[in-house]
């Protein structure tokens, strides 16, 4: 089950404060980078939910994000729905698609599950790529952003849009924590540790997997709908399997199964990408070598490494402090 430690709270607060400060102070380019980080963070949050807590390593989350983006684009430009309704609709569509994928893939394990999700993701990619209705390989443009002028926000301004994404990322994080702490989330972790025992306990394993996969898909769909609004243009490239692969890389570099780690990973990944791209065009070589080094080091990513190294010491100090204050309370009570 997912638990907050002092270290995780600290990291979360630092992330939130950093993102907020950046959103308030940064110029146009900084805001674009920030929004990119926030959307990637939302996607890897969704992926970590299933991969880190259910052992379902998915190579279709990029495609799910693409489904969300396309659903939003179709619902606003072709069906003529109001953007907030379209946002809800795209989340629902993506969640349903993810639920079906999760239900079909529930029987497969390990490399077979990876391949099954890859197959569904690529299916969506090649369908969108060919279909004239979805704009084919030209993509679709003219996607409107949500109108929040009622509460005095103009989302066509990058600063407001970045703050809007930050708020929704916070909401998505809260939802992910609630899901993982619920009975459903605990069952999922039980399934990851010992599927047969959970089945013997009377659990319908495939339902648990499909439900969490669907919920994770809804978060990915939200990220996709926001990405469509961010760039106001979408292309089939959003659904390609390399996007999912990159998301998986971010989860691993950040720390699988920590929720906080992948979000740190997203920030590090995007910033590093922009910094390295300034110096050399061989960004992929850097990522590749970094990925190999992290996996070979057997640490659970950046955040997992920090947790293993300083987490225990910090926890002890903090619990000492609380124990001391408990003791003081007892003496004062007495």
């Amino acid at each position: 089950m997912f638990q907050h430690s002092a270290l995780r709270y600290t990291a979360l607060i630092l992330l939130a404060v950093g993102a907020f400060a950046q959103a308030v102070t940064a110029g146009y380019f900084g805001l674009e980078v920030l929004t990119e980080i926030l959307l990637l963070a939302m996607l890897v949050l969704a992926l970590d939910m299933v991969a880190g807590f259910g052992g379902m390593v998915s190579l279709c989350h990029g495609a799910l994000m693409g489904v969300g983006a396309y659903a939003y684009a179709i619902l606003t430009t072709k069906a003529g729905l109001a953007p907030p309704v379209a946002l809800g609709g795209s989340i629902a569509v993506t969640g349903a698609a993810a639920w079906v994928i999760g239900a079909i893939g529930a029987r497969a394990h390990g490399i077979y599950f990876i391949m099954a999700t890859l197959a569904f993701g690529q299916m969506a990619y090649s369908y969108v790529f060919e279909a004239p209705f979805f704009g084919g390989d030209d993509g679709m443009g003219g996607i409107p952003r949500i109108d929040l002028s009622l509460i005095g926000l103009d989302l066509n301004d990058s600063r407001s849009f970045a703050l809007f994404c930050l708020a929704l990322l916070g909401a998505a994080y809260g939802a992910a924590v609630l899901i993982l702490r619920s009975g459903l989330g605990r069952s999922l972790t039980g399934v990851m540790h010992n599927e047969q025992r959970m089945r013997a306990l009377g659990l319908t394993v495939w339902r648990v997997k499909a439900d969490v996969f669907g919920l994770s898909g809804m978060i990915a769909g939200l990220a996709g709908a926001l990405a469509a609004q961010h760039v106001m243009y979408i292309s089939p490239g959003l659904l390609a399997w390399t996007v999912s692969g990159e998301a998986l890389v971010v989860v691993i570099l950040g720390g699988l199964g920590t929720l906080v780690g992948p979000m740190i990973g997203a920030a590090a990944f995007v910033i590093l990408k922009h910094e390295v791209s300034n110096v050399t065009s061989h960004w992929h070589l850097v990522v590749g070598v970094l990925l190999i080094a992290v996996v070979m080091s057997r640490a659970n990513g950046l955040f997992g490494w920090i947790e293993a190294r300083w987490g225990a010491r910090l926890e002890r100090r903090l619990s000492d402090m609380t124990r001391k204050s408990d003791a003081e309370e007892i003496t004062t009570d007495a």
Partner: protein
Amino acid sequence: MSLDPGFWALQTLNALQLSMLLFLLSIGLTVIFGLMHFVNLAHGSLYALGAYVAAAAATVGGYWTGFFLAPVAVAGMGILLYGGLIKRMRKSGPMAQVLVTFGLIFALLDLTRIVWGDIALAIEVPSLLAGRVSLFGIDYPVYRLFIIALGLAIFAALAMVLKRTQIGAMIRAGVDNDAMAACLGINVERLFFIVFCVGCALAGLAGAVAAPLLSVTPDMGLQILIPTLIVIVIGGLGSLQGAIAGSLIFGFVQTFGAVLAPQLASVLIYALLAAVLVIRPMGLFPAKG
């Protein structure tokens, strides 16, 4: 659509040619997986490396230099990878292996870009195999027939080695139960090393063979990776029959899908893969029952 027999003959040959190219790639990957449960996503990058070596050697010493040099060079690369990375990753789970080889894809992609640049290279078909030949009432390029023949020859040779020789029996034993094979005195680790090198050499050969047909670009390894993975998952991991059956299914579905139902062609193969995974999660001909 045409009912002309020439059309069917042409598409059948095209499908066979694609199948054989995929077979050369998938056989190495599938036996590596079957023998040591190692998922090497970088197999496609080795294929791209083979194509580049062939293209570079062809400009110096002609096509056949490249044809023979590419497998050797890629096998050499395989030895380096084995010593540097793969040996240490043997005991890790599939997840770590997928990630390390995913990192390798990125690294090799940029390394080929650094060495050979971004511009697509092209090499000529050798004069011996140039031109067309009349077959079943159609004119067909000799070079494509050569690929079909090469694929079939390699399939026959591998089937022969696996069925009839001692090392083949050892490989089959290792795929079936590696711990028991090791108890019987087979050096499974060395066996795997040999299989890995042969698999790499075949990937390099596939790259050299494909180079004159497709242009040689840095991302050709990424493009072929997904079809190769589909082939081995449909066929079942670890078996020769699986690799050839999967390659043929992929080649024919892809080729005939593209001419008969162009709208559905690209989705068709993924739908087939999903169907196979649902009905037979271990593929059609898994090495272990």
